[in-house]
């Protein structure tokens, strides 16, 4: 799949923003006043910034409001609703903390639930696609949730929780790569089943339908950079997990905490690039590609 910057930025920052909102929502001793303002500002900047970035890949963003209508069948629609709901509830909850020094806990719990729902629905947009066998697997929602909660914990300064969740996220990512590399083959979809000609003999793409490129090849058959996958996976593990975990273990101050956060974000951006660039869409088979 084409690793569009807009979707990489969206999934990375929204995940972190909603993760932070989750921890703010369930915090029994939530910060108030200025401290709360800073936390909420960071969370909203990331969550809303990510959502705005996601509209950049829309052909007609001016019609985006219509995307809230099909929650009965569409995970993308559900995600939109969950995100707006969470942002509204958490705005009220945040206003209580920042301006009135009051903690309206039930609102926070509701918002935390909404944040989880948002991250889960985002992950399901990818997981539901049978056409991308690598994503059509339990590791996709598990990874999105673990990264969001782990990153949120890191941002909110929860050392032990962040430590555990980042370890979990790293394990899930390794599992996702391990299973992912054989998913296309295991899906049973091949050029033989795509053409139905496998019964006659070995099928080979002889001539594509056109001399130039097309939307399908640009969007679904991204092979550039796949050859660096192994190095990028190591960089991902290092930046997203190893560095922040080491810092958390060695003890944090303001400077190292910032370093941990920056490293984690860079790592997750890398991870998401791989998430898209390495995902094989079955339509590539028709072109003799993957």
């Amino acid at each position: 799949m084409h690793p569009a910057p807009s979707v990489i930025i969206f999934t990375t920052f929204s995940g972190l923003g909603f993760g932070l909102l989750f921890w703010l929502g369930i915090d029994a001793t939530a910060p108030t006043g200025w401290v709360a303002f800073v936390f909420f500002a960071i969370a909203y900047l990331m969550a809303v910034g990510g959502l705005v970035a996601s509209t950049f890949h829309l052909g007609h963003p001016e019609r985006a409001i219509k995307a809230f209508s099909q929650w009965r069948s569409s995970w993308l629609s559900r995600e939109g609703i969950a995100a707006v709901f969470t942002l509204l509830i958490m705005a009220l909850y945040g206003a209580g903390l920042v301006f009135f020094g009051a903690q309206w806990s039930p609102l926070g719990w509701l918002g935390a639930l909404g944040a989880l729902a948002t991250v889960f629905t985002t992950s399901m947009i990818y997981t539901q696609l049978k056409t991308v066998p690598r994503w059509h697997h339990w590791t996709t929602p598990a990874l999105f949730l673990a990264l969001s909660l782990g990153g949120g914990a890191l941002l909110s300064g929860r050392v032990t929780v962040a430590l555990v969740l980042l370890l979990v996220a790293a394990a899930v990512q390794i599992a996702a790569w391990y299973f992912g590399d054989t998913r296309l083959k295991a899906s049973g979809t091949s050029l033989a089943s795509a053409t139905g000609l496998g019964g006659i003999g070995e099928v080979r793409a002889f001539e594509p339908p056109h001399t130039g490129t097309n939307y399908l090849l640009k969007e679904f058959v991204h092979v550039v950079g796949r050859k660096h996958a192994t190095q990028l996976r190591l960089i991902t593990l290092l930046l997203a997990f190893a560095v922040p975990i080491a810092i958390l273990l060695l003890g944090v101050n303001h400077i190292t905490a910032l370093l941990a956060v920056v490293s984690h974000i860079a790592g997750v951006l890398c991870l998401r690039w791989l998430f898209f660039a390495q995902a094989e869409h079955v339509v590539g088979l028709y072109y003799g590609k993957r």
Partner: protein
Amino acid sequence: MTTLPTSTDKKLGLVIDLDTCVGCHACVVSCKGWNTENYGAPLSDQNAYSGAASGTFLNRVHSYEVQPADKAAQLIHFPKSCLHCEDAPCVTVCPTGASYKRVEDGIVLVNEKDCIGCGLCAWACPYGARELDAEEKVMKKCTLCVDRIYNTNLPEEDRQPACVRTCPAGARHFGDLGDPDSDVSQLVAERGGFDLMPEQGTKPVNKYLPPRPKDVEPEFDILAPYLEPIATDGKGFVGWLDKALSALPGGAK
């Protein structure tokens, strides 16, 4: 509504004959021609007159080489357009309701006024049947020529999809695949029509007819035995010639 109808009154679709398709791309051209002037936004081209040309097409013809274990390879031309799936994943993923499947005839369409161009439906289609138009930024797909098949302004023989009407080899057939007595259903039953990627669970309405087995040429010429090729273990003049030529520098042994 992007939930799918539980059943449709008809299942209109195409039957594509891989035995007779000659790979002429006439259906590709007629499809682009009709659909760029009719239903919805036109089908744009980018850099049409440069080396990097690309454009939106609703129907494309691939070519595959199939190599049987013990026979000569076969070249098979393979036209592909939307298969108007019964369990169309492209419809259920659409967040806006722009994509829908019609209850009356099962045709899968996009209401372009509602489409936000998110592209998710194209991600969900395993067949590459949907393309986001680079100029209009809305999703384009085969309409089964919905503006021809019911169009009483057209002469009756033209009330079929442009690709079907154009095909010089008669490789594309249009009809109701939900009616077991229809011509297309009969054809599918007779020729062993099959689904593309059945494991994806999309239940395509369109069916493909397999190439017929290649004939084996029977020996029919009574003179053939007298025209046997010259023996390889040549004797007499031929044998002498063979040896003489081989003896020359660079001659084949």
